[in-house]
């Protein structure tokens, strides 16, 4: 059936998940049939795709220009059970996909800490999950994607078809074109449960040692750290390793419906702006103490649901409101394995700064993929959330930037909203190659975002 293309547009104040420093743009909702016209109508400040707005900073903002939201078509998901691959429209979320895939015995190849990301965003940020050390990032599993270029031609690319453009798009922050759909491999699962091994560890040395020793034995591995602990407790944390549970691990009741899956939000954050007193050193220290003590010192084979293990924060809708109207930023970097000393220095400085940080995640990455701007690369990655209203934060982070870069590390563009163009240039040595490919497919700089202008990824007019 031929239907008229769907296009609607309105002026909108758009922010990233961190809610810091929003900007206004024309938000254009469009389906694939109307997309070429929407791209032709882009103004001088260009356009950028936006999915569910889960990147923390400004990559899905385009002040003074257009922001395009691709509405998925009705036949948005096609599963090939024989080949173990799925083709999904770029606007489809992992949440939508999991609801369809899990009951059929499939799992997405990579999931971040939230299900509320789109396939387009997953590729543009080349997202990683707890299985990176074994299976790499999202782009590793994509066999083909369709991309609308600045001149509205649609190209099919993959690791074996125009690999340059493919790997410039994987991690390319939407700046090579609009991803229309993608085909990627799935993980077969016997059950919808995760068998979890938990270890509570009293200091950073123990956490790092056990991670290095054990993570090759598990598909999923991540550690939560308490950055308010100091002295001999510095870097204490809880390590959780996981595997998809086999059918014979389920008890009789669960074995009856091994692939049962319910992904939903339990509660919403109230739509009020909390005062500055909600997140402070004391409240977070109390929370961290509780979180640390709540974890068993040692537990094996605990069965958890997919949402409980992978997406605990999704249980609370709009949890980002807790940081108030100044918002927050997430600082995530990776340093090579041999630069453990740099990681330790960063953690010491953060602990000494006594910031109210309760979301701190430490993970070991496996080798990176050929993506020119793909973030993951072999080494330790640390992610922290910090309220944006802390005085002295600018100097602290500038100092951490230097430590990370001197150690041969880099920052994650999907999280960044603070570092400099120079830091990105130093951290991504293949940036010039990426810029050359981008120039080939978008010489006029039609694709632009606040991030691309802030970090000099857009050709200047």
């Amino acid at each position, binding site marked *: 059936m031929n239907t008229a293309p769907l296009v609607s547009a309105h*002026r909108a104040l758009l922010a990233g998940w961190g809610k*810091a420093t929003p*900007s206004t*743009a024309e938000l254009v909702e469009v389906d694939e049939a109307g997309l070429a016209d929407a791209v032709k109508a882009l103004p001088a*400040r260009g356009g950028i795709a936006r999915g569910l707005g889960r990147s923390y900073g400004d990559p899905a903002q385009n002040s003074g220009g257009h922001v395009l939201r691709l509405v998925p078509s009705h036949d948005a998901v096609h599963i090939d059970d024989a080949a173990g691959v799925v083709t999904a429209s770029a606007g489809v979320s992992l949440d939508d996909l999991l609801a369809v895939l899990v009951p059929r015995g499939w799992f997405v190849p990579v999931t971040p800490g939230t299900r509320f990301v789109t396939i387009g965003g997953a590729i543009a940020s080349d997202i990683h999950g707890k299985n990176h050390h074994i299976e790499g990032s999202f782009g590793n599993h994509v066999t083909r994607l369709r991309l609308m270029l600045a001149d509205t031609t649609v190209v099919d690319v993959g690791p074996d078809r125009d690999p340059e453009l493919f790997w410039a798009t994987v991690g390319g922050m939407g700046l090579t074109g609009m991803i229309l759909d993608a085909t990627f491999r799935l993980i077969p699962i016997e059950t919808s449960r995760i068998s979890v091994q938990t270890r509570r560890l009293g200091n950073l040395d123990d956490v790092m040692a056990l991670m290095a020793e054990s993570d090759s034995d598990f598909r999923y591995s991540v550690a939560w750290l308490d950055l308010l602990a100091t002295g001999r407790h510095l870097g204490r944390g809880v390590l959780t390793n996981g595997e998809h549970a086999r059918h014979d691990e389920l008890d009789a009741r669960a074995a009856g419906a091994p692939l049962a899956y319910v992904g939903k939000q339990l509660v919403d954050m109230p739509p009020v702006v909390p005062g500055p007193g909600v997140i402070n050193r004391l409240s977070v220290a109390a929370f961290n103490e509780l979180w640390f003590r709540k974890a068993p010192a040692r537990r094996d084979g605990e069965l958890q649901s997919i949402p409980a293990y992978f997406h605990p924060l999704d249980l609370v809708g709009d949890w980002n409101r807790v940081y108030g109207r100044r918002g*927050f930023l997430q600082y995530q970097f990776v340093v090579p394995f041999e630069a453990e000393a740099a990681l330790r220095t960063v953690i010491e400085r953060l602990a000494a700064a006594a910031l109210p940080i309760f979301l701190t995640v430490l993970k070991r990455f496996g080798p990176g993929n050929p993506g020119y701007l793909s973030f993951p690369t072999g080494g330790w990655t640390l992610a922290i959330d910090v309220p*944006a*209203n802390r005085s002295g934060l600018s100097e602290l982070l500038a100092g951490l930037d230097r430590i990370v870069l001197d150690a041969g590390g880099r920052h994650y563009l999907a999280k960044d909203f*603070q570092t400099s163009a120079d830091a990105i240039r130093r951290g991504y040595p293949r940036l010039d190659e990426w810029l050359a490919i981008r120039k080939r497919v978008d010489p006029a700089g039609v694709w632009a975002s*606040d991030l691309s202008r802030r970090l000099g990824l857009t050709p200047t007019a």
Partner: protein
Amino acid sequence: MQNALQEPQTIVLLGGTSEIGCAIVDELLSPAAKTLVLACRRAEEAEPGRFARPGLHVSVEQFDAADTASHDTFIRGLAAEHGDIDVAIVAFGVLGSQADFDADPQAAADAIHVNYTGAVTASLALAGQMRRQGHGHIAVLSSVAGERGRAANYVYGSSKAGLDAFAQGLADALVPAGVKVTVIRPGFVHSKMTRGMKSAPFATTPRVVGELAVKGMRAGKHTVWTPGVLRYVFSILRHVPRPVFRRLPLG
């Protein structure tokens, strides 16, 4: 584009020799800052060296607040050369002497032209640019002198009263555009503008004004009193009976 910490990359100071304006710039500068434009009538009096730091380009531009017809072209030219204007400070103004104004009404007209008309056209030009770019923050230097007319400085005070009302309205008008306006209302500030004058109660320094202004801007305040206590002082002074107000030792 400002980063998550609301640190601007490009700052424009209209009134490039204003001590309060420079103090606000001091507070705004961070490792994120790339371009600072000091726009002033007498370019040779600007002190770009004061702001020198690695990675920051400081540019001094000829700008005449009284030449209102040039303002829109001037702002468009800055954006064309330096890109988006993240933060602009409208800091130019003349205090003048009430005695001189009494003797020469045309001098009063000239002062009002700069303090009010020029600030309005410059702010509107900035507002237009920031609407086009979809973000930005304008700081407008008002004064407590605009809160209630006084015998000592009613020409200056009335020009600031007009500017203050204009900027408050502009702030509301720009909300849908995602552009912020903060009105800074300093009390008596020890600076070259007030040199030789008798200090008033709650007098402060450009540095303190700069600190409080930027703190207020980052907190999203529409109006910043410096020092903060003046907000409460003036909420009382506004209602003091005229014969009493006239006799108060306000400097």
